[in-house]
């Protein structure tokens, strides 16, 4: 455990040193504020709290941004150290290979935690202050932040998988962009296309929700938009998740599977790797 912390803190310090964390906080915080200020127009008529509305817009934003940030942190984590030669020396120290992976993971998740909670959390405090101290809807907002962290962890794990499988950093960067495109854009487009062509004949609601669960980004979206009554009503999808039999536990379970599985494969490949 001590070694995990040493390795994690090294990643955290790297993130602080190269202003990575600062940039992510500003990006997430700035966009959260901009969206909530733009999105505050409908709150007057529908009587939904500013935080509830923000959850909807931020969930849509996070689906794009969080995977991108996580992949940028992680694609280089292993292949970069192989390429530069620092891994060679590190593995002659009293650390096991799983400690190397888990230490990095801990460090990168910690970076995401700081970025998300400082960025989105800061924006929340400003919104609360702007609405005269109204904290209505905070549970949905906080759970959105937690879900974002879990989504980030998913893509950190996927980034490691890329990082351990490829031979060069440039390939890893390309693969990371490809992965991002698939899960953030292409998969949804494909699903839409299939639904339009199918016109509700072959694909039942059951099958459709299964297909949604295949993508961690869709899982994240449903998790944010359907677990809180106010949010799902404002998002116009009230009751969708419960009708499809998707509970919060199931959805969170899916996301955690998306963390554990890539990490396990990464570790397996890394254990066999010879330097």
């Amino acid at each position, binding site marked *: 455990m001590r070694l995990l912390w*040493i390795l994690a803190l090294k990643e955290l*310090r790297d993130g602080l040193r190269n202003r990575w964390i600062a940039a992510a906080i500003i990006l997430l915080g700035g966009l959260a504020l901009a969206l909530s200020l733009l999105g505050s127009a409908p709150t007057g008529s529908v009587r939904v709290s500013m935080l509830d509305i923000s959850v909807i817009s931020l969930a849509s934003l996070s689906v794009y941004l969080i995977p991108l940030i996580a992949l940028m942190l992680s694609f280089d984590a292993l292949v970069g150290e192989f390429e*530069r*030669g620092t891994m060679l*020396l590190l593995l002659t120290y*009293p650390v096991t290979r799983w400690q190397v992976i888990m230490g990095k993971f801990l460090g990168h998740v910690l970076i995401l935690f700081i970025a998300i909670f400082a960025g989105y959390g800061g924006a929340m405090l400003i919104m609360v202050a702007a609405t005269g101290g109204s904290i209505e809807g905070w549970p949905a907002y906080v759970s959105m932040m937690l879900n974002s962290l879990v989504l980030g962890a998913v893509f950190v794990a996927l980034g490691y998988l890329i990082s351990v499988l490829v031979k060069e950093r440039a390939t890893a960067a390309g693969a990371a962009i490809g992965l991002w495109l698939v899960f953030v854009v292409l998969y949804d487009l494909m699903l839409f296309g299939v639904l339009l062509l199918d016109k509700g004949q072959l694909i039942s609601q059951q099958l459709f929700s299964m297909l949604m669960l295949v993508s961690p980004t869709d899982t994240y979206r449903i998790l944010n938009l359907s677990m809180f009554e106010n949010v799902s009503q404002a998002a116009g999808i009230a009751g969708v998740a419960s009708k499809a039999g998707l509970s919060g536990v199931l959805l969170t379970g899916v996301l955690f599977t998306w963390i554990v599985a890539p990490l396990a494969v990464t570790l397996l490949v890394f254990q066999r790797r*010879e330097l």
Partner: protein
Amino acid sequence: MSSNVISIQSVSKRYGSETVVSKVNLEIQPGECIVLVGHNGAGKTTLMKLMLGLTRPSEGRVEVLGGNPAFSAAVAQRSALGYLPESVAFYEAMTGREVLSFYASLKHVAASECDTLLQLVGLGDASKRRVGTYSKGMRQRLGLAQAMLGNPQLLFLDEPTTGLDPLLRQHFYQLIDELHKEGATSIISSHALNEVEARANRFVIMKAGVVVACGTLDELYQLAALPVSLKINVTPGQASLVAERLGSEVSIAEVNNQSLSLSCFNGEKMPLIRRITELGEVVNDMQIIPPRLDEVYKYFMNQEVSS
């Protein structure tokens, strides 16, 4: 067997169809200083990586400190181990001090030791600079410092003195000697034959993945059967006379006005010396020059590899 620090038994390593290390046997006792010599690509680095557990042998068995270094059970033992890779790489964005204390914490070594080591390798002033700004020699020194963290029992040094200035080289060997006095074992790969000649207990000469010779310097002389040179000083003007009196069966390399260079094989050395002393007072000095390591090395490199 159990007293060996390292035991390598008929170990081969193949990458694809290429055999990098072939049927190597090597036993290393505690406190020894082993020097690996050989051309580039002879398998020295791979042999070290096998001993470090970074790679696994395709055949045979490697045991370090009584265990397989590639197993995770060996991880705890790595605290007693120091390694300087051939071209050492560090985290460029960190300062020298940060790099060293990161490695120190992994080894459970007190941070105070870092400053001592940085001073020792002459990086005291540069310790607050980013490693990215370091020169080749400074990186090498930082590499040495990290290898010496926590007084290692077992040192693996892959071409440790490249990029070091002559003064630092001497200093470096002093440090190694001090560690040896405390009972450390070291395995050094080097091309600087004249530097390591006096320091190693044993030499392992590798060629194309095969150990072509292994032993102390004396044993290698015997194996190589290289001629010993003798240089005798005689009364001025008497050199050619002495050459005549020694007879034709003695091979004379060079005759000057007052000195002669002779060469003979090890078995013939004493008879030759007796004959020289019989020459009387005309001979006023004699030097015996054994073959040097680079000659021994050249000899083994020119031998065909017999498999």
